[in-house]
């Protein structure tokens, strides 16, 4: 009896010594909630951030975003830009390797980027790399892929020639479309190169298992050049498109991170989980577009009046419970290369003053009470929050101008198909999330030549000219000034009325260390650690 007791104690003691002495033995796992099932793990076909979070853990581009959302060297350790701003020379890391141990070469990058621009690939985001010389022509099938401005100078040196100076090119390279694929693997495995057991990747993690709609498991990639500093051994992504389910699984402590929850949960979650709730303003704008092809929206006074009458504070606080911020500019704040955006001139006035001025403008234009009747139809894509915004805006326009406002909603696909195909409308909801952290990405939406995204068919030669100048300008300060002028003009004209800067909502467990909120919503698992 005593002996047995003694043995038991010894075993306990031995066990605790073993565990205490070698914490490295315990595998650390990050349970990472994702907002849905990835539609693809192919960098050529990816289009949504659900895929971005996974792909950027698996692969490493030439440039990456660090934990704070700043561009830093990735697979390339350094680069030079020629004086004319047209040729980038990237030096790849000598110890950058694929998960099968083979070296990451300049040839892999040439192959990957050619693959994206090849019309046969039909890459969804091919256009994001159009600044590369001949990319647009290659993608249209007018030139063969080998005419793309890419050259593998030697195994570890990559030269990229641009169509024109593109100050935000390093940001573009951090997009998931620009992530490399292993030439050898894709040539050998074809479309199957994305499957677990087959995939060869060069990031901090490698794919080990994938059950669609259940989980995607990645493990630390021992061949990664910075593997010594990767603290989490295994990252499991859980695809959960139901936001409430995502919150429940976080609260049941089954997940350390949950991405995107319903704004009406914000107050309750803050009360229950305090600091674990993160509201991080992001590079995304929620706006209404006016159809400038038709009366009365062709009249700048009407557009300005309607825009001014919208109480953005109400939308942000009452509808989104502070999970979105009031906005008066097309370009969201938080863009390092741009600084403070050019806000509409009424941004600093009180809502009461805005309404007075709006009423005056509307009267001048001859609409509303005492003038021609104001019948407005708001179109939006079906979504409870968009409906609440549209109802509130309708109310504001009714109260201010005595307008008659009707609401029309279609599902996402139909809504945007209608707008893109040039369908006529009065006022339509739209949103834009940055592809890359540059003001141009937001302002180009209103170019008269932009047939797809300029829903309201706004045409302003002065705006177009300012943008054109900005494309030709190499000096970043001068360029930023031109873009600010263009935005100021856009905000004066209000063909689009920005309402809100969107925020990313995250639940981040206390266990997770190293998390930093950032406007580009970049959160590589390699910068995180978990404490038990």
């Amino acid at each position, binding site marked *: 009896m005593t002996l047995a007791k003694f043995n038991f104690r010894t075993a306990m003691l031995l066990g605790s010594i073993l565990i205490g002495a070698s914490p490295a033995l315990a595998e650390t796992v990050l349970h990472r909630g994702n907002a849905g*099932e990835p*539609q*693809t*793990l*192919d960098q050529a*076909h990816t*289009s949504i951030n659900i895929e971005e979070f996974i792909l950027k853990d698996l692969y490493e581009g030439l440039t990456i975003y660090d934990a704070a959302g700043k561009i830093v060297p990735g697979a390339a350790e350094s680069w030079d830009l020629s004086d004319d701003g047209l040729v980038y020379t990237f030096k790849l890391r000598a110890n950058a390797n694929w998960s099968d141990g083979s070296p990451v070469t300049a040839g892999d990058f040439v192959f990957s980027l050619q693959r994206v621009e090849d*019309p*046969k*690939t*039909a*890459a*969804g*985001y*091919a*256009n994001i790399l159009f600044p590369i010389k001949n990319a*647009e022509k290659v*993608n*249209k099938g007018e030139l063969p892929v080998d005419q793309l401005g890419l050259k593998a100078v030697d195994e570890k040196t990559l030269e990229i020639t641009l169509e024109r100076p593109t100050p935000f090119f390093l940001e573009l390279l951090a997009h998931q479309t620009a992530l490399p694929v292993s030439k050898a693997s894709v040539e050998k495995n074809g*479309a199957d190169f*994305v*499957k677990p057991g087959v995939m060869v990747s060069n990031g901090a993690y490698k794919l080990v298992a994938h*059950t*669609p*709609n*259940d*989980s995607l498991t990645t493990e630390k990639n021992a061949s990664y050049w910075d593997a010594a500093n990767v603290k989490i051994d295994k990252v499991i992504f*859980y*695809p*959960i*498109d*139901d936001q*409430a*389910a995502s919150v*429940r*699984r976080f*609260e*049941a*402590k*089954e997940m350390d991170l949950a991405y995107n929850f319903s704004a009406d949960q914000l107050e309750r979650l803050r009360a229950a989980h305090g600091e674990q709730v993160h509201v991080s303003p992001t590079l995304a704008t929620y706006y209404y577009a006016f159809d400038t092809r038709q009366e009365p929206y062709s009249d700048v006074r009407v557009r300005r009046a309607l825009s001014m009458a919208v109480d953005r504070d109400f939308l942000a606080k009452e509808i989104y419970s502070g999970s979105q911020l009031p906005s008066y500019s097309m370009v969201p704040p938080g863009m390092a290369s741009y600084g403070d955006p050019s806000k509409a001139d009424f941004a600093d006035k009180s809502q009461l003053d805005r309404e007075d001025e709006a009423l005056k403008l509307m009267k001048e234009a001859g609409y509303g009470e005492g003038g021609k009747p104001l019948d407005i139809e708001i179109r939006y*894509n079906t979504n409870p929050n968009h409906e609440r915004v549209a109802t509130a805006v309708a109310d504001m326009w009714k109260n201010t101008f005595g307008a008659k406002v009707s609401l029309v909603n*279609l*599902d*996402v*696909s*139909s*809504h*945007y*198909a*209608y*707008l*893109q195909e040039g369908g006529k409308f009065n006022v339509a909801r739209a*949103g*834009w*999330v940055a592809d890359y952290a540059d003001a141009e990405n937001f302002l180009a939406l209103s170019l008269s030549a932009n*047939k*797809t*995204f300029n829903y309201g068919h706004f045409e302003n030669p002065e705006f177009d000219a300012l943008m054109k100048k900005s494309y030709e300008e190499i000096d970043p300060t001068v360029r930023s000034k031109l873009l600010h002028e263009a935005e100021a003009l856009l905000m004066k004209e209000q063909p689009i009325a920005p309402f809100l800067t969107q925020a990313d909502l995250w639940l981040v467990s206390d266990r997770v260390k190293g998390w930093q909120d950032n406007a580009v919503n970049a959160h590589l698992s390699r910068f995180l650690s978990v404490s038990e």
Partner: protein
Amino acid sequence: MISFVLRRLASAVPTLFIVVTISFFLMRFAPGGPFNLERPLPPQTMANLMATYHLDQPLWSQYVSYIGNAVTGDFGPSYVYKDNTVAELIGKGLPYSMELGFYALLLALVGGVLAGTIAALRQNSALDFLIMSVSTMGVTVPNFVVGPVLTLIFAITLSWLPAGSWGDGSLRFLILPMIALALPQLAVFARLTRGSMIEALHTDHIRTARAYGLPARTVVITHAMRAALLPVVSYLAPAAAALLTGSAVVETIFTIPGVGRYFVLGAINRDYTLVMGTVVLIAIFVIVFNLLVDILYGLLDPRVRHD
């Protein structure tokens, strides 16, 4: 009997063909397409995609090639889940849906028949009242309410069971989704059984059996049950088809990797091929289960003969 089964299977072919044809064209009448996203694609990209998936061809030629491929079992690539074909997606998801659906069906059937029988034998008692109230709730409270309430109690508050996911497929992961999935059907089975059991207990042959002094258990189980199960069996076909092909709601709430969600997701995303695939799947299940039930009916009801 065999000729009956063969005849029914032969008639399934034109039925499937009509279902596929109607769905194909109905789907295309919906505005937008698989590549009209919240973030619209530039025209060049759109053109490349349409060409890759042959969506730039005239509709009739797309239809002809779809039918041609479908006959050989090729249901095409998913337009949205681009790394997979429709057959792969359904092949991966169906086992999960069927396993969960099978347990749910078993629970609903056994639980429902048991509860209905007890209620019928204790007609108008407090127990009957309780069972019927609970089953009324089972029918009226939708599973998107039952599911979250169950998780709230058993996963978040008590931490007994997982809030979601298939996990390792062990029972503890299945209990909550199984209950949420089974409850509405269990309630229907209970109500059907109770009604037909009460009726059966009042028939002449049961009265005769009782008069002969047969034990109550034999009367209920062997004689009354056989008649009482007929409406239950006829409801079994749609219930089985619905449960085994997965539920979009329950699978979404509990993040189960089944095929139920593909029907809804496919329709929302205009993933034409995926919708067609799930339509064919559900149609096959409905046809097969209706056939099985008809055969079962013949065995249970001496008045029905399949010659």
